[in-house]
């Protein structure tokens, strides 16, 4: 006689979360119920036969690689195109940056000069540097002139001193000559007058 509990119990028997209590209950029922025992045997037999499947090696195939390369190629191309779309935006950003930083590139004297800041300020700076350079040169020239004047002054002083000494010597000789003359005149006068 068919058992009314067979379907319910056997359905639960094959579920993942069969509790130990329910397992014992089913096993006890199956031991006592021949109909359920027979059915359980048939079902487990089917499951056993299915599990007996021997895996077949997959045939060699390389379409997945071709597919992969093709898909990657497409994707790379797409990415490349996307990168190209970014170039105008990047160029605009660069130009904006250069403008904001007042960057100027000047080719001068065989060298490329890159400077940041206002061009007017740069010109002023350049003029100031030139002025400082000229001022230093003038200062140096003035110092040279002073040195030369000092040298000339010293030479003049030396010349003046030599002249004075010469003059003094001459004066002395003149005084002596006068004294000699006086003494000579004095002695002659006494005898004649």
């Amino acid at each position, binding site marked *: 006689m068919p058992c009314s509990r067979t379907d319910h119990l*056997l359905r639960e028997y094959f579920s993942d979360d069969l509790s130990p209590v329910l397992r014992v209950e089913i096993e006890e029922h199956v031991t006592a119920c021949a109909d359920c025992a027979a059915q359980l045997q048939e079902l487990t037999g*089917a499951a056993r*036969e*299915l599990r007996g*499947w021997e*895996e077949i*090696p997959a045939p060699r*195939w390389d379409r*997945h690689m071709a597919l*992969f390369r093709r898909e990657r190629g497409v994707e790379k191309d797409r990415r490349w195109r996307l990168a190209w779309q970014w170039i105008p935006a990047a160029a605009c950003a660069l130009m904006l940056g250069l403008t904001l930083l007042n960057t100027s590139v000047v080719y001068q004297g065989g060298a490329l000069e890159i400077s940041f800041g206002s061009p007017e300020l740069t010109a002023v700076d350049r003029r100031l540097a030139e002025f400082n350079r000229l001022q230093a040169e003038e200062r140096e020239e003035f110092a040279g002139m002073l040195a030369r004047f000092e040298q000339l002054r010293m030479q003049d002083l030396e010349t003046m001193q030599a002249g004075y000494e010469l003059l003094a010597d001459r004066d002395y000789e003149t005084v002596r000559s006068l004294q000699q003359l006086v003494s000579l005149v004095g002695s002659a006068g006494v005898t004649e007058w």
Partner: protein
Amino acid sequence: MRVSNSDEKLVAGALNGSTRAWRQLVQRYERRVYNLGYRLTGNGEDAMDLMQEVFLGVYRNLHRFRGDSSFRTWLFRIAHNKAVDLNRRRKLLSLTGGLDESGEFAGGELSARPESEPDHGLAERERNRLALELLGRIPLEQRLVVELKIYQSLTFEEIAQMQEISVNTAKTRFYAALKKMRLIPEKENALLEN
């Protein structure tokens, strides 16, 4: 020492364009997917078609793999969907074979032996033929549950999510499938002798 990469690492590698990672990923699962296809379709040619469809689907959806479930579960979800699609498109799985009223084999695709596999021994071929005969008795929706439960060891909860059904329905489908495939001793002997 060679360390095998995890599925997640291989997925990341494949997404970065590594051919090697993709090849490893395919080689790791191609056998299982091919056998799944064989059991679902009953022949090597359709199994191959299904395998290619599955890996194409895997590749195209690889960037959507978030790691919420294991890669294996994700892959079999794709395989499940592809099998359903294939069945819908070609009706390949609406088999004419299986047991007739008297319990004898009526022939059909699932009774075909995997003879295209030269390395497969006679005993293995017999076991597989018997499994295919049993699977031929049940409709696709039940065959998918049996496939995922017995061969892929998924839980009823995972199967239920995959098929968008309740866990109880998944259990019922599995039990109903087993009932249809149950081996009655005298018929089992006849089947084995066939």
